[in-house]
């Protein structure tokens, strides 16, 4: 048995209010640079909807991720030779239009406008061509339009159930799906990279692009089924979500998690056996992939796992963190978190607690008690559409696991109501979903009121390395920290590496953890 640690995230979708704070703070931290104007390492999509880039889930079109060919796992775009033959023009690369053309406004006209009868207008200017433009699309153009006829029918995830959506389910449903890179166990981006520039870190599984090794072949952009690698059109290099590794290394959460208004993100370690990944990713049935991935994870309480981990040099504090990991609890213990699109076979590691709210809303709207378990269970069974839609996202269409999770969430809702109202808790409620009373209460605590230290259990990078990671200065991957022009000799960002200092993270950590 080999043991590896993976830094993973779980998002509880019921709590996402679609405020985009995570996207904005992430952008400020990582992609507010030339060449990255159109890039959102974190984006929040309204579902049903088209997503960003538009229709990214349609793998018949984009051919991202892996597929099974004669029982062998293969990149969906084809074998290695085929990749190299397509290197001069990547046929599956999304264009700027599939994301959107970034723009800014010419605010000068507002500031310099003379007194006049009509109010002056700031016109949008393209950040690509510099010309005035008509804004026609953006990273969240269909925000909050969940059921709108113009967009919903184009949602690739509604393929096959669109009729039912129209006839059976006139009441639309809507929820938000925040997305970052999945830091997959079997990353298709890394496998697609001709230069071998994308790698998975042994210590924490974070997937990174080596900016010095990337040669701009763009194969990762099309290889990633989640479309979470982006091409910096100024530097000619691929860039992606870094899981805020400089923060993680000193034990504080990613920017998106830190700033999440709904406090719905959880970060922690999951232990897994890398030797099981290939077999798990190659199981025949798409719908078996969720279970197969669960099968790769290891139990940090298991003495055998502990022994193996020790042999392989996984530090004690990391094992402790693995045991406390909220992510592990949601995924392995309570089994209420599900992977996004397991059928892409990349073994994603950002999981989601599917939202019960579409169901609750319907029950509420019909005047029934939306906190009564029977009503909720009935609704989960009756409301095929939201459930099928969720299954399309999280379990390759298998409604059973989704049903199971929604029932647990519904049971938790009923069970906690009794407690909150000072009534005797009803043990038969957790029992109905196969949980114990204490377990259910713990799950409630974690999902509803967990403090900072419980939501983020992040062991620091090895103590003996820590001094090096902190304060000395992390070199910035993209040395062109806005020398804005093209002054560099060989194009933007060329030249020797520029070192920049990061803030003192220790002080910040203390400040952030104050609430705990």
């Amino acid at each position: 048995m080999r043991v590896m640690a993976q830094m993973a995230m779980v998002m509880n979708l019921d709590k996402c209010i679609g405020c985009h704070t995570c996207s904005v703070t992430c952008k400020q931290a990582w992609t507010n640079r030339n060449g990255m104007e159109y890039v959102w390492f974190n984006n929040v999509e309204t579902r049903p909807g088209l997503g960003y880039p538009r229709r990214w889930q349609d793998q018949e079109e984009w051919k991202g991720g892996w597929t099974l060919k004669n029982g062998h796992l293969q990149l969906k775009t084809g074998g290695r030779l085929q990749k190299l033959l397509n290197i001069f023009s990547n046929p599956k690369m999304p264009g700027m239009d599939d994301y959107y053309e970034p723009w800014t406004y010419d605010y000068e006209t507002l500031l310099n406008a003379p007194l006049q009868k009509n109010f002056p207008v700031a016109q949008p200017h393209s950040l690509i061509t510099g010309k005035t433009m008509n804004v026609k699309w953006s990273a969240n153009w269909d925000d909050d339009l969940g059921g709108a006829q113009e967009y919903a029918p184009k949602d690739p995830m509604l393929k096959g159930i669109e009729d039912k959506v129209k006839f059976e389910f006139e009441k639309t449903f809507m929820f938000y799906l925040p997305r970052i890179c999945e830091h997959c166990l079997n990353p298709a981006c890394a496998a697609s990279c001709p230069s071998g520039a994308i790698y998975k870190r042994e210590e924490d599984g974070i997937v990174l692009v080596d900016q010095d090794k990337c040669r701009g072949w763009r194969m990762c952009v099309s290889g990633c089924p989640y479309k979470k690698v982006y091409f910096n059109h100024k530097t000619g290099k691929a860039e992606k979500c870094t899981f805020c590794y400089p923060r993680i290394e000193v034990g504080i959460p990613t920017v998106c998690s830190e700033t999440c208004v709904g406090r719905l993100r959880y970060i922690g370690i999951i232990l897994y056996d890398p030797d099981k990944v290939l077999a798990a990713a190659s199981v025949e049935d798409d719908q078996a992939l969720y279970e197969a991935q669960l099968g790769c994870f290891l139990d940090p309480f298991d003495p055998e796992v502990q022994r193996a981990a020790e042999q392989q040099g996984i530090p004690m504090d990391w094992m402790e963190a693995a045991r406390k990991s909220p992510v592990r609890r949601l995924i392995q213990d309570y089994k209420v978190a599900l992977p996004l699109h397991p059928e892409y076979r990349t073994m994603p590691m950002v999981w989601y607690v599917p939202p019960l709210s579409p169901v609750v809303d319907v029950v509420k709207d019909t005047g029934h008690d939306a906190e009564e378990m029977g009503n909720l269970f009935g609704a989960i069974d009756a409301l095929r559409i939201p459930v099928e839609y969720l299954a399309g996202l999280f379990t390759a269409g298998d409604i059973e696991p989704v049903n199971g999770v929604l029932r647990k969430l519904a049971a938790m809702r009923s069970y906690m109501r009794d407690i909150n109202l000072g009534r005797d808790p009803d043990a038969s409620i957790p029992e109905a979903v196969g949980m114990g009373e204490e377990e259910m209460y713990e799950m409630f605590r974690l999902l509803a009121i967990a403090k900072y230290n419980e939501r983020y259990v992040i062991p620091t990078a090895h103590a003996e390395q820590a001094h090096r990671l902190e304060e000395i200065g992390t070199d910035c991957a993209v040395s062109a920290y806005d020398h804005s022009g093209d002054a560099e000799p060989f194009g933007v960002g060329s030249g020797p590496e520029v070192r920049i200092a990061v803030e003192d993270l220790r002080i910040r950590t203390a400040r952030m953890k104050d609430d705990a």
Partner: protein
Amino acid sequence: MSTFLWVIFPYLCLAVFVVGHWWRYKYDKFGWTTRSSQLYEDNLLKWGSPLFHFGMLGVVGGHIIGLLLPKGWTDAIGISEETYHAFALGGGLVAGAMTFVGLVMLIYRRRTVRPVFKATTPMDKVMYLFLAGVILLGCWNTVASVIFDSHFNYRESVSPWFRQIFWFQPDASLMTGAPLGFQAHALLAFALFALWPFTRLVHVFSAPVGYLTRPYIVYRSRGSKVQDGLGNRSGSPTWERPSLDDAKR
């Protein structure tokens, strides 16, 4: 004068080529990229780029055969001058035409598609000038030999001279008799070599043939030595401990 043109100048250019690459790699790994503009525009690129690049691969192959293989060798295995010539001409015309058409499309695209033009550096423009010059002269030499039915055999003058450069005994007189077109092609090509390390052409040396054999998933340690570099930059080789093995092919 001829010593300068056919002995000193080539060596100067080659020296710049070699030292330049070494320096560029040391100084500017981050700038070492194809600087692809596919994100901006795809319809022209889709045709132009493969035409140009595959044509170019053919052209390079042709030059290797034509310049590096001594005539004696092909004679020895019984390939007659006529066969060789017909073969070289056929291949040369096809590859040359592909390259030429591709080049025209790409230059047209670069000039007319505004985002692409905006992303063009002055160095790119100089490079395009030389590259296009070399290619046009090369095409002209091939076409001219057909039109004027010339009997100039470059394998008896240009090629030996080129090989001699690598033995460090170039004989300038071999080149002085060559037609002007060949002379200009050779000179411009050497000038392009001198420019090479300072342009995006460096990406040629990153041709990722290693992809065919390396394991799919690359693991790398965060690194424990300071000189390993921090974070996602590292001085260590790209894949140290391949693990999700070759089973994945």
